[in-house]
């Protein structure tokens, strides 16, 4: 029963990941992230995600494009580091708009960015929960095995 749960969880996770990759939400960088996770702390991915996004401080007033540029750069760095492909792409477009002082473009980019970010966050959260369940289930199944 538990074993079956583990396998199903794993299948679900794979499917979710496949979708995300297909959508371009995640890219191969995320795989690297996962690999790193396997070796050490299992919470690495979630930690990365949380840290990267917890200070999503995009300037809404657009009074200062330069400052926005800085935040954007950082955001882009974070998102690209964890493999958030679409988020990063939107950031790039956002940056272009801000450099051209294109206020409408910036607003739209911000909107889009929020969408992408929320979507990604939800999906990653889902993934993480599944992973936790899988670990628990696998732990119950193989009590001596460490993850």
């Amino acid at each position: 029963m538990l074993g079956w749960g583990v396998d199903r969880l794993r299948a679900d996770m794979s499917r979710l990941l496949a979708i995300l990759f297909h959508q371009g939400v995640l890219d191969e960088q995320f795989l690297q992230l996962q690999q790193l996770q396997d070796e050490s702390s299992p919470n690495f991915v979630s930690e990365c995600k949380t840290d990267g996004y917890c200070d999503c401080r995009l300037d809404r007033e657009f009074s200062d494009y330069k400052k926005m540029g800085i935040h954007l750069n950082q955001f882009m760095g974070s998102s690209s580091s964890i493999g958030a492909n679409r988020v990063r792409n939107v950031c790039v477009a956002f940056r272009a708009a801000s450099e051209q002082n294109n206020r409408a473009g910036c607003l739209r980019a911000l909107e889009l960015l929020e969408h992408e970010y929320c979507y990604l966050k939800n999906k990653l959260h889902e993934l993480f929960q599944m992973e936790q369940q899988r670990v628990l289930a696998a732990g119950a199944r193989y009590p001596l095995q460490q993850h």
Partner: protein
Amino acid sequence: MAALQRVTSSLGTSASTYGSCKGEGVKVSDQFPAGLRVLVVDDDITCLRLLEKMLRRCHYHVTTCSQATAALKLLRERKGCFDVVLSDVHMPDMDGFKLLELLGLEMDLPVIMMSADGRTSAVMRGIRHGACDYLIKPIREEELKNIWQHVIRKKWHDIKEQEHSGSFEDNDRHKRENDDAENASSVNEGAGVLKDQKKRSIAKEEDDAELENDDPSASKKPRVVWSVELHQQFVSAVNHLGIDKAVPKRILELMNVPGLTRENVASHLQKFRLYLKRLSGVAQQGGISNTFCGPLDSNVKLNPLGRFDIQVLAASSQIPPQTLAALHAELFGRPSGSMVTTVDEPALLQASMQGPKCIPVEPGMAFGQPLVKCQTNMSKHFPQNVVSAEEVASGFVAWPSNSVGTLGRGSNLGGMSSHSNMLMDLLQQQKQQQQSQQLPSLPEPSHVINVQPSCLVVPSQTSATFQAGNSPASVNQNCSRSPMIDYSLLSPQSNNSSLNIGQVSNGDLKTTGVSGYSGLGSISPLSSCSVNPDNSSQQVQSSTMTIRAARQLPGLGPNISNFQSSYGAKSSEVLDQGPLRNLGFVGKCTSIPSRLAVDEFESTMNNLEHEKFYTDMNGNKVKQEPNIEFTDNTRVGIPIIPQLAQLAPTSSDLMSVFTE
């Protein structure tokens, strides 16, 4: 903070290797590249952790730092304990390029830049600043596996140059003289840049045939310490020859310093020229500035910024190189007053206390000196100012010179535009003053001069002017808090701050006493930067500064009044010249972090088209994806989050806007 904890824990691990650092020198371990000692600096915790993990998988010794100032401090404390530095370009407390330059000059470490910004202009900037490599985020592990090549390359380069420097010296001399002349004009061209890079690294190595020999067995020889006096001589020699015609051989002859080699001079000249070029580029792009007024503080700390100012002036189109050379000559030619000597000695002492390899202050100091003297000579009206400035400066001796100076310089690299503006104005003003023999009698009390860390005094028109920019701090003469106010404003940690003159100019010095303080205030961020990167400790630092400043006050009273009057006169004249320009400068300074000023200009100018193209590419890409994905999802039967449905129209709207 987690980052700090990590640093501490990393320090713990690297502490074990510290013992071996001293013994081995720069030897390569047997398991190379395993065990490579890497320092990673990135304000983004996500990236930092990721990199740390990946580097550990490459079997490197990793130390992480989330703040550039902390990293700089760490590197200075433990020179020789790191093999390579990975640094992010965009960091809040210090521009990555500043850090890069500082590290290259101070300790000749290979520095690899990282950034999410992969545009050609950004990468070019990295190369121009001397980065060994430029990695674009997201960084893959394979890229990190290869960073050891930069360490090896540098080492072998050093060894090769040492071998060659003796035998081919004569040939080199002729070749280098010609090449130096060429390089002067082609620094900013691609080929020239690469050549410069190569020559710079060559010159660095030949610098190692220096005056100190603390470890002859090490593969890296110690470097020439360019003290203030040495640099003064250098600059006067350059000025004498003319900046375009200054060749290392002639400079060496003019300097007549025993033990100094032509190669030392050549490399120093190269760096000098690079700074000029870089600052000239910034100066041309920069807006208008406040006047550059005399050096309030000939202290080491102020010098770094001063240096930039002079060089900016020189480099800007408005000021011919000859004027700059003249400035330098004047400054250095003028015999140092007793006060200046006093200042220099402690500064040098402190510098030397930091260790023989401590170079950071020296170039900064040297470069900055001209400003102090410049004022005196260029405008005869201010002889007293200089004296008082020096006296005031002597009060600052107590402050740690090395790190502050370096930081000032480092930070100033980012603030080049503002500095250049100020310098331009200053020189113009000085020229005018030279022509007109008279000074306005007394300064208006409302015209205050802010003394910049770079020895620049920025006259503020009114408090309103500056208040328009940053949060103002009215500094009162009587208030001993005033320096503290300056300091808090000058927090290096604040979002839109850098060690920018604009920030400093917030200190609105309304009275004579205050002008003295402004110098203090301007120095503070430098110190606080180096010592206390944390925001929380900013106040502690400020209070320390305040105490020091307060101590200096009594002795400076009468002098400051003289100082103020002269500067006030100057400021009034400056104000007449260009009130709007002051505003423009202030606005720019306050709203734009200095470290971005240059970048944005360059990138904007160079990449408008590029960005549009990129946007189009992205636009198309993004547009197509959602459509495809949605259909796929429908087929698969997976529930689609409402957000996805919203994405399609939004993205197409977005892209259409972009492609307009």
